[in-house]
């Protein structure tokens, strides 16, 4: 029986990522992991992680927070490692040595996904391994002390692109990895955020039901690296969505669908002002930096809506033809 995605039923399920891990108080990563594993509660799963905050804090010496089989081998290769696990599963299933329906999930940081692990991820997706690769995206290399990554947004202050008197934080735009993954032509790609948990869990569940490679990019606030209040992870996640800084959408078989449209798009300041990493943008004389960020976000959002529209009209046309 399929477990319905409601609090009543989900609260009866065992948490397969337990308390006692050593992630910071208020870190959104364990919340995201629990949501993924709860959405997958009807399946046995094997999880792979890349080196990073989640990995170093969840399995130390003889303790592990993982109640599912879990493997961490290195930083840049979770996708390749998991592709090996999945291939062995296929081999043993073919030989009749395994009969269970097991799902394979990678849960990796943005550094291990956007940057050093991009080749391994791209390869695993192109080889069509049956796995869901999730990036828990906290927008920097947190484990090594908040260095910039390809996911770090423009003008964020990190330890390797510090906001100085001349350079106001990271000068470059962040990489649009979700689109890059969609361009692989894989059957399912999505962006999600823990503030919108039913959306997140529905996407995980949908992904797990589709055979082949799937990718999800999940916004994961980090109070330590973003210099925010410890208990603001979900608020920040909601603001990221409501400002369209982090749009919630999916690309299923190439068709773009925005899964949540804020009734009223909030100005980006509301997201920025709660975070130490953007504090320098509020200094006098730097107003244009915020407007520039606003322009980038607006453009991205408009483009996304247009992409959705293209497909929406095609779908309608198809219906008409059928009629």
């Amino acid at each position, binding site marked *: 029986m399929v477990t319905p995605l409601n609090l009543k039923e989900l609260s009866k399920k065992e948490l397969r990522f337990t308390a006692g891990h050593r992630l910071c108080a208020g870190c959104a990563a364990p919340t995201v992991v629990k949501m993924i594993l709860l959405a997958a509660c009807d399946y*046995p*799963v*094997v999880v*792979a992680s890349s080196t990073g905050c989640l*990995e*170093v804090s969840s*399995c*130390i*010496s*003889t303790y*592990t927070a*993982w*109640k*599912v*089989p*879990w*493997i*961490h*081998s*290195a930083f*840049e*290769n979770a996708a*390749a*490692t*998991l*592709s*090996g*696990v*999945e*291939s*062995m*599963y*296929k*081999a*043993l299933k*073919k*030989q009749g040595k*395994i009969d*269970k329906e*097991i799902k394979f999930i990678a849960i990796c940081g943005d550094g291990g996904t956007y940057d050093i692990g991009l*080749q*391994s991820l*791209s*390869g*695993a997706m*192109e*080889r069509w391994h049956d796995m869901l690769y999730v990036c828990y995206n906290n927008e920097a290399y947190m484990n090594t002390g908040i260095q910039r990554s390809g996911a770090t947004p423009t003008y964020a202050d990190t330890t390797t692109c510090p906001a100085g008197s001349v350079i106001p934080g990271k000068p470059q735009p962040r990489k649009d990895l979700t689109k890059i993954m969609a361009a692989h032509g894989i059957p399912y790609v999505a962006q999600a955020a823990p503030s919108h948990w039913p959306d997140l869990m529905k996407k995980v569940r949908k992904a797990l039901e589709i055979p082949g490679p799937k990718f999800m990019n999940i916004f994961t606030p980090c109070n330590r690296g973003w210099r925010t209040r410890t208990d603001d992870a979900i608020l920040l996640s909601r603001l990221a969505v409501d400002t369209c800084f982090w749009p919630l959408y999916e690309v299923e078989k190439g068709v773009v669908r925005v899964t949540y449209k804020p009734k009223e798009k909030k100005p980006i300041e509301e997201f920025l002002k709660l975070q130490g990493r953007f504090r320098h943008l509020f200094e006098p004389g730097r107003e244009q930096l915020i407007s520039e960020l606003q322009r980038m976000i607006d453009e991205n959002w408009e483009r996304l809506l247009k992409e959705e529209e293209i497909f929406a009209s095609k779908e309608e046309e198809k219906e008409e033809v059928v009629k």
Partner: protein
Amino acid sequence: MTQIVAATGNEAVANALRQVEPDVCAAYPITPQTELMQRFSSFVSDGKVKTELILVESEHSALSACIGAAAAGGRVATATSSQGLALMWEMLYIASGFRLPIVMAVVNRALSSPINIHCDHSDAMGARDSGWIQLWSENAQEAYDNTIQAFRVAEHMDIRLPVMICYDGFIISHSIERIEYLDDDVVKNFVGEYKPLYPLLDVDNPKSYGPLILPDLYMEVRRAHAEVYKNVAKVVLEVAEEFKKTSGRSYGLFESYRLDDAEIGIVILNSAAGTTKDVIDEYRDKGVKIGLLKPRLFRPFPYEEIGKALKHLKAVCVFDRADAFGGSFGPLYLDIATSLYHYRKKPVLINKIYGLGGRDYMPEHAEAVIEELIKIAKTGRVRSYKEYIGVRE
């Protein structure tokens, strides 16, 4: 019934892999290994094996995938050379740290720069401290036999470590030789059914692979790891003994050639040992008491056994097909010197660096070194402890 064929080294190892039929293989092309995995891919395409082949996007991913596959709980193999092995470096240590019985053919080739596709041993020597067992092979027959034995050694419950089978690029990988193949069912029986240990795919008994271990326990873990290597030589010999019963061919930790009554000796790895043995025979005919030692199990290095085999000699030359830049001597020399250090009476030891990047090793080279050893044995005087030979000045 054994089958006698004419085949290249790569063909022979591909055939061994077909006979063993690992559950998962990962492959990425690099000369001179490429042909091996191409042949294996044909076995997959033609349905001759049920192996899941992962055609990865790099060698780093090849070994990462092998690590995932082996941890998942099945038999795993791969192959590489040179830059490919160098790119795997990080993962080599993780494969051995996880105690995963992965088998990898290393078709020895020089390392860049300058780029060069021909044989030397820099690639495998660079990996010698990574915790992999290394079995070296003089010819295609040995490469084939070592491949089959490697699975038994790697998967032995007292060991569970990855194994490299090293053989010389082009010289062995691409030359046609006479080879005796065992029957398919003989090989299948010899390697036996794979026994998983803590498989990830046992979802009812979840295991975590790859923990963080800090200074409070790291040293204990590494010490326990080091202990495992003490079991390897014994298992290698047991497996060789059993292999002899099925094949008639005998293997040890090293090959000792006309060494017992010798006064001078040569230590040399892989294909060059063949040429050297021919020259040794000529000198023996002239009454010169010379022998040869060819390491087979290079990692873990059997110090005691090799020390015992060489200590009675007056002079020994160690040939290295790799240099250790900025270090003192070639890598094989260092291990041989260590094996002999504790003996009060020991041979004079010299080191020759030869055959880099596929430079031919000729009988004349062996002859010149033997003449030099004869002189050293007679006079005790050494002209040079380390030098390059077969090099244009």
